[in-house]
């Protein structure tokens, strides 16, 4: 029999972290700090709209790019929150989560050999998506000394004549790092000079604990070379609804729409109706969740200081990224030992790229009680490690 598989797909490694997750799921009494989604339920009025749409029998396809009402609401939301202006008719595309948007943006923009700059540590799908779109991923290793922000120097150094796209994953999963306006201005200058395009994954934009989130597309001349990706999963605690969107200049969005149309048809109709409600009447919910996350974030940082665990202060998403180098273990070893000895699950930084070595991701999408309990166990664990090191 011939080999049924494509040469491209077999070069992509399955995520190594799965093994670790399997151990966690089998451990009955483990406390997990490992999930990447909100602990809140979707606010009831949003769920209610979803239910109502089913009751009314709205069970058909929507138009490929999404419900008109939803696109109008998205356009208004981006305007009022980030000062971005996109026309609902041909510059906004409703997708199955932010992840579909990442995939189709790359497929619409890459030719074989084009290089895609991917800052890491970051979410795991950029690299395989670039490869599947025939692009060549090029990793930029973000540094803790820069608070895991991308600097103009780092960007400049990674650019070759083949570079076409920069992926900009901020607020960042797993580090919690954000890019402020000044940081964005600095890299925008480089992007313009080298005529690059940006895929800006802003899925965590509503979870920013500084003044407000700034989108790179709001800087001069950047709108026409940026695809902004966002969605409802993190801001409105709607992960399971699978709903996101991409916005950008018509010329790119209409090509993305072709892929979406043939591969997906349209995003789930129920979710789209629920999302209309989320954007019309959900700003208060988002504020409430943001305040709650912020309280937990401050609590974690306080506890790290108490136990002498080094961690730069994250200002976005719901992750902290403490450094564990002092214990002389790899991230993987640390996470495995912590799970075995204290039954606390965290994610090794290396799951998000080699530059995550020496760090672990701790999510605070958990109740305070849960966090307190888990942090107590982590403190015990590192105290024991330090004692052992001293005995030697």
């Amino acid at each position, binding site marked *: 029999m011939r080999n049924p598989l494509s040469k491209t797909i077999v070069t992509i490694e399955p995520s190594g972290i799965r093994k670790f997750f399997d151990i966690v799921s089998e451990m009955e009494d483990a406390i997990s700090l490992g999930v990447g989604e909100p602990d809140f339920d979707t606010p009831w009025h949003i769920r209610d709209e979803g239910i109502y749409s089913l009751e009314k029998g709205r069970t058909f396809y929507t138009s490929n790019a999404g419900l008109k009402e939803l696109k109008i609401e998205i356009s208004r939301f981006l305007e009022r929150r980030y000062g971005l202006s996109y026309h609902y008719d041909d510059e906004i595309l409703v997708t199955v989560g932010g992840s579909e948007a990442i995939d189709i943006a790359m497929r619409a923009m890459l030719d074989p050999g084009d290089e895609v700059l991917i800052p890491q540590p970051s979410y795991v799908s950029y690299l395989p998506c670039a490869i599947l779109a025939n692009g060549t991923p090029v990793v930029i290793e973000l540094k803790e000394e820069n608070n895991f922000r991308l600097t103009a120097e780092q960007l400049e150094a990674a650019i070759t004549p083949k570079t076409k796209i920069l992926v900009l994953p901020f607020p960042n999963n797993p580090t919690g790092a954000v890019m402020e306006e000044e940081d964005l201005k600095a890299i925008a200058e480089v992007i313009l000079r080298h005529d690059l395009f940006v895929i800006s994954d802003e899925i965590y934009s509503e979870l920013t604990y500084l003044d407000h989130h700034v989108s790179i597309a709001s800087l001069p001349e950047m709108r026409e070379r940026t695809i902004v990706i966002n969605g409802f999963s993190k801001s409105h605690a709607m992960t399971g609804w699978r709903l996101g969107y991409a916005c950008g200049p018509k010329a790119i969005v209409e090509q993305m729409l072709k892929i979406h149309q043939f591969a997906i048809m349209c995003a789930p109709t129920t979710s789209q109706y629920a999302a209309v409600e989320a954007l019309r009447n959900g700003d208060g919910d988002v504020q409430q969740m943001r305040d709650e996350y912020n309280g937990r974030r*401050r609590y974690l940082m306080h506890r790290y200081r108490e136990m002498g665990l080094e961690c730069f202060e994250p200002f976005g998403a719901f992750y902290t990224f403490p450094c564990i180098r002092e214990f002389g273990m790899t991230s993987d070893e640390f996470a495995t030992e912590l799970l075995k000895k204290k039954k606390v699950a965290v994610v090794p930084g290396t799951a998000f790229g080699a530059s995550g070595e020496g760090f672990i991701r701790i999510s605070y999408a958990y109740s305070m009680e849960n966090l307190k309990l888990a942090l107590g166990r982590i403190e015990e664990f590192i105290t024991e490690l330090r004692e052992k090191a001293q005995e030697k």
Partner: protein
Amino acid sequence: MREKILTYIEKNSKINLAELAISLGVDETAVLKELEEMENEHIICGYPTLINWDKAGIEKVTALIEVRVTPQRGMGFDKVAERIYNYPEVNSVYLISGGFDFMVTIEGKTLREVSQFVSEKLSPLDTVLSTKTNFILKKYKDHGTVMAAPAKDERIMML
């Protein structure tokens, strides 16, 4: 800061003050001071506990009583309300809009105890025109809290 403190303690009056201060990113003494002031100003009126008596196996009967009254000259609704809320059996008294005037909740050990209160104390009041007693059969949610145990965390590890 007041609103933030109130939002936290409305959900959990047992919250540790040091932790509350950390969560708000302020000094613990500042939180303490605000709380004291709000207690003095009677913004914070108490710290009762939400109890699921059913689960404790202790019998309690609660009734919601709709009361119609005639406010008398020189004696507005406030005075009538005072007559009613001074009874220790009375849990809450609200003046409401609609078909009747007061919504009164009464808690007693038995049905009999509650009906006795209504027939012997509440109804005979001069100003009370009529009452309608609704017994609570089951409490599903109280003070924004669902009485049933919260659902298990079903989220899976995901990057």
